[in-house]
């Protein structure tokens, strides 16, 4: 699965995207965040408090309890500030 990171999420993780093979038990966005938080202290700092993050599944805004199903890409980012 392709993961994308934007704004300070990208800066804190030191990368804008990566591709991971996820274990079968990671079925929701919340489970994905928990899985990522366990990878390293950097990931724990970003994904330990997912309430300050938003996410998109296949380029649509999504909720933490949404199923990943056959998603091709998941993006994590702070609340948007365009306009």
């Amino acid at each position, binding site marked *: 699965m392709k993961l994308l990171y*934007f*704004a300070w999420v990208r800066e804190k993780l030191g990368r804008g995207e990566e591709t991971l093979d996820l274990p079968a038990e990671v079925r929701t966005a919340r489970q994905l965040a928990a899985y990522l938080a366990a990878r390293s202290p950097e990931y724990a700092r970003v994904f330990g408090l997912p309430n300050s993050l938003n996410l998109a599944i296949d*380029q*649509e*805004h999504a909720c933490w309890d949404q199923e990943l199903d056959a998603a091709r890409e998941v993006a994590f980012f702070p609340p*948007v500030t365009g*306009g």
Partner: protein
Amino acid sequence: MQISVQEADFDSAAEALALTSGRNDIGAVVTFEGRVRADDGLTALRLEHYPGMTEAEIARHVDAAQARWPLLGVRIIHRIGRLGPGARIVLVITAAAHRRGAFEAADFLMDYLKTRAPFWKQEQYGDDARWVDAKLSDLDTARRWQKPGQS
């Protein structure tokens, strides 16, 4: 509708002309231009976005606006990259037979660009840079457009 996300500056008048030229059914054209303010010594904004999702998300909101108001034209341009004080950031043009739809649709589209389109602003003050926090007031403003029962 035409949606652009670009580093280049834009010419609002030329865009309005392209949207309306040769038409005699348009009675109202509302143009919103957002610009970089030099508050507190800001030296530049840097705007980042999510290519692909940005265009799709804006198109969804233009569709919603067109379903809600009888629009005869919509043009949206959002700039990305480094923008100095006074620079144009965003353009929304709406054209309609009557002014109410044109005003409300432009206002609606700006609220949704602020709260849903995947752009992120970083403020630069000399060598210091900080990501802009989302404003709760923008969410409240966007909520005005929800119909009863929507969350």
